[in-house]
């Protein structure tokens, strides 16, 4: 997909995010908006996904013969749900059920309701990288050459389990795994370096044995180029970690440059102000 087309999808996904969160007056718009460009780039361009004869995506829990994506920071479920729906995993109309009773779109991603595209629950932080490691290990044992992607938050790097997985993955030479850290520098209680300073995450991952790349996660051209570079670096003995600089709330001016929209829903006026900044490119749900 051309980057202008990816831009269109991203704009619609951002509209979906603010509308979903507004619709239920809860959820996490900030990180969702910040990671929109990455998820759109992955699902609409970079990932090799299973499709049928009509070229529609087909969800297979096993993920065999295709690339897999794991969302470790499950609270940014709005962006994942929107991208999955827009990519064709389930009807776009279902986005209206987000966080409501009897919905498949739980507050945090879950498998119990069998939502296509979700392979494991996430929400309690720090666990996704381990699950991705298991999936990548499974691909090695099954001799499946496809890749496993995993997105984590930067606040989430404070969880100890992340560093258990960060040791395990290079030690086991899982060079079919590409991890992202959403480096937006914000978490619920304030700036990440004030709450609990992560120091230099790139150097940390390097010290653990990863190949580390950096990118501007809100620049579709840079995302495409870095994903290409990461794929080329895969299969060479080391896993790849991409430190992805993003702006929490990207695309909605009043949600940017603050941690305040981490987990807050816009009211009616704020919704209108947000939507005025985001083109409706694919039709609202």
């Amino acid at each position, binding site marked *: 997909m051309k980057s202008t087309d990816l831009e269109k999808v991203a704009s619609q996904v951002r509209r979906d995010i603010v509308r979903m969160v507004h619709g239920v007056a809860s959820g996490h718009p900030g990180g969702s908006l910040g990671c929109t460009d990455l998820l759109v780039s992955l699902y609409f361009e970079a990932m090799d996904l299973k499709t049928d004869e009509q070229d529609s995506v087909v969800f297979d829990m096993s993920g065999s013969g295709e690339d897999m994506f794991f969302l470790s920071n499950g609270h940014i479920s709005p962006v994942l749900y929107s991208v999955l729906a827009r990519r064709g995993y389930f009807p776009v109309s279902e986005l209206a059920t987000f966080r409501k009773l009897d919905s498949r779109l739980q507050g945090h991603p879950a498998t119990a309701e069998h939502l296509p595209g979700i392979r494991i629950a996430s929400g309690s932080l720090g*666990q996704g990288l*381990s699950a991705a490691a298991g*999936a990548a290990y499974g691909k090695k044992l*099954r001799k499946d050459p496809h890749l496993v992607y995993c997105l984590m938050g930067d606040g989430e790097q404070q969880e100890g389990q992340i560093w*258990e997985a960060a040791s*395990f993955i290079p030690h086991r030479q899982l060079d079919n795994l590409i991890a992202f850290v959403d480096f937006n520098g914000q978490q619920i209680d304030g700036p990440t370096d004030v709450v609990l300073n992560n120091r230099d995450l790139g150097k940390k991952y390097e010290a653990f044995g990863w190949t580390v790349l950096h990118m501007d996660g809100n620049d579709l051209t840079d995302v495409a180029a870095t994903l290409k570079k990461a794929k080329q670096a895969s299969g060479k003995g080391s896993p790849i970690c991409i430190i992805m600089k993003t702006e929490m709330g990207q695309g909605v001016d009043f949600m940017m440059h603050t941690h305040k929209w981490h987990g807050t829903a816009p009211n009616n006026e704020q919704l209108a102000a947000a939507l005025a900044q985001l083109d409706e490119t694919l039709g609202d749900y």
Partner: protein
Amino acid sequence: MRTYTFTEKKDTRSGFGAGMAELGRKNPDVVALCADLVASLKLDTFIKENPERFIQCGIAEANMIGVAAGLTLSGLIPFATTFANFGSSRVYDQIRQAVAYSNKNVKICVSHAGLTLGEDGATHQVLEDIGMMKSLPGMTVINPCDFNQTKAATIAIADYEGPVYLRFGRPVVPNFTPADQPFEIGKAIVLNEGADVSIFATGHLVWQALEAGKLLVEQGIDAEIINIHTIKPLDKEAILKSIYKTGCAVTAEEHQMNGGLGDSVAQVLSLNHPAPLEMVAVNDSFGESGTPDQLMEKYGLTAASIVAKALAVIQRKK
């Protein structure tokens, strides 16, 4: 009283190791994971014969549980192994979210459960794991009684689709279960039929219950002894069938009274057929260092305790 004999005493963890060795040969999807306790879990044969299907995780149990959950996606059957304390309380949130809630086909197999871990003391003697695990929706909880039963259970859970917590231990205990007895998950085993009192025992306490049965015969009491190797799903039918006959029960386990087998049996009785119940279990206390036998004696997990509780509960029958 039916007589049970054994030719040797063996540890249940070796039963697990033997089961894994057999699974390694017959099921190519079985993968073993361990957190730096290979010798304690008796995984040597499995690893020697299937080195590519063994994943050493190091002292990083939380990651091990997540890796196991991820492995299930490609149809592999991961057996995640460590000490019971580190495979339950240390990683409860990981088991809850990545295994139970996500309904992944992970087998959490843990040794050194309970007081009989011995000299290492209370930091390692988990007595709360059955309670934690049975609280999780969809989790199967198994606590076999001897070498042969642990081996059979290990093999059986590979054929069952869903999360399982398999708990066993360190000391040698009489190996009386027939080697060819198939293991049926959730199906209690009546070891002795009796009319005066039901004794529901699990794990290492099953042999103690048989010893208690013999002592009770000397006092003219005819005890029904049932091996509850699966705590969840609990064989309610077998429990009620026995209680309709005897009218009272004793439970026996190497676990806290809170959350253990006794709790589960109490629930079945009060919801269906209230009857006097006494429990042989650790009573809201941590363990301590000592030999397994000393600890079982001090904390009252013995045949003599079961006898005393049986006599007391019979008195409570109207």
